[in-house]
């Protein structure tokens, strides 16, 4: 099972990022999340990245792409680089109501594939 992103439904509200951080360390902050918003603001080019155990999920406006170790990050600028240092998504396995990012997103962007 893994988190899935529908990038074009995303509006860039970033609540998934903050909810994920809350799951990991019980605070409101953008810095400790497994999911990360990246943004080329003047081009309005944005999407979400998810740090998985052995890969990165890149949810770009053009579509999803899974990056394996050693592959270059494409379609995400410098704002996305810190994702490599983040803790991997654990699908909120200890949360009663499932992944908090899915609970928090008002737009139905996120789901669990293989569930």
């Amino acid at each position, binding site marked *: 099972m893994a988190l899935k992103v529908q990038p074009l439904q995303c509006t860039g509200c970033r609540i998934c990022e903050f909810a994920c951080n809350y799951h990991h360390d019980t*605070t409101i902050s953008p*810095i400790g999340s497994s999911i990360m918003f990246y943004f080329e603001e003047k081009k*309005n080019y944005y999407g979400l990245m998810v740090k998985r155990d052995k890969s990165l999920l890149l949810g770009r*406006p053009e579509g999803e792409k899974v990056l394996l170790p050693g592959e270059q990050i494409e379609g995400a600028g410098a704002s996305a680089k810190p994702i490599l240092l983040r803790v991997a998504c654990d699908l909120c396995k200890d949360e009663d109501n499932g992944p*908090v990012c899915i609970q928090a997103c008002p737009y139905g962007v996120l789901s669990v594939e293989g569930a």
Partner: protein
Amino acid sequence: METMNTYNGTILVVDLDAQTCTTEELSTDLIEQGLGGAGINLLLYEQYKDRNPLVLGSGLLTATFAPAACCGVMTAKSPVTGQIAHVPFGWQTGVEMKLTGFDFVVILGTSPKPVRLWLHDGLSDINDAADIWGKDVWASVDKIREAYGDEMVQTLIIGPAGENKQSLAQVCENYWGSKDKAGLGAVFGAKNLKAVAMRGLGSLEVAEGFFQKCMELKNEIVGGSIKGKAGLYDIGAALGIDATALEKMKTMIHRNNAAYNCPYPYYTFLKYNEPPAAMDMKGHAEPGCLVSDIAGFAALAATGSDPARAFERCCRFGLEPLGTAAALKKQGAGDVAQIDKLAGTGTAEGIPVWPVCVDQQQAIMAITKALSFAVPPRAPFSQDGGAQTWVARQAVAYLLGIDPVIMLLAPELTEEKLAALVALAADWDDFSADTLKKIANAVITKST
């Protein structure tokens, strides 16, 4: 009361005359009196009123999981009304300021030279702005992000109109317009303050059960009045904005964006330098413009100019679009190039008036001129409660840091539910909707 779940506990005082930054503690007394946002801003404004203060304040719930808790509020004397004005700042800027570690920023006096204020990680610097003074907003934001090495730096910034102290000037949020209809761009310019740049990687504590309560309220909103609607277009259509302008907009819609934690995306990105459906990043470097002001867009269209390109010029020069359209109309000019000249000569003729809902706007202005008409004068998707209700609910949003447009769109955000979130977040057992309404009403009374 437990303040660490809502605030960092710090007020920054920036003395531009002396070029110094000092901090003060955000006391529990101040929070009990003013709650936050416009409420505490007003108390700080009074405290420093002899120093021409410009106060930036976080709402009590800003940056929390409360739905639409994305805004801060700027408070200063408006060059448009001559009275105190409260202007919400949102997009990602309100959240960013709180996460820098500063809940409130009081900016006093006038800098002897152009400067920008740099807030980050609990630190504040007054930096020289000679490299961006005279540049337009887009070029300046690029330069600031390059200088601080981070493309997620958020800015409240002015263009040439603000530098020239024109009352038609608007404080911009990054590259785009804002809710500033009060000429606070000229206040920045008069202080020789080009920008407040912010990068916040701080954190706030979360009270037990708060996340779940916020999710319940968010789900109620998503399933309520806004269900099935999106973007500026739907708001405009519901309000009766000119169909020609709306259809023009429709041909350029790229994506609808939302500010932090907002359940309705009313920031609509228009692409006109490449096909709107283009989703990759390989195309035009500046493919279009983000628009959140439907009244301004429609008014620019009514001048005969290309409304999207005219809106972009307003953003670049830091001009308020609705007033700009009125000035263009007065000149009989529909030429986009005429907008550039207004950066040097743009005088606002009072608060800009919407092309629709005029009677209700007049009724609201008879109560107060202290709040922003970037927010439509009536609710587009639900039964409207009239001018008194508009003012009362907006004032609550300005205290708590709730996006004022979402406050209007979502009647599910009741004072009772918001008061319950405050009580839970701040561990403030006896806090009630009555207290919330009373403090909100006092803000209006004292600002008018």
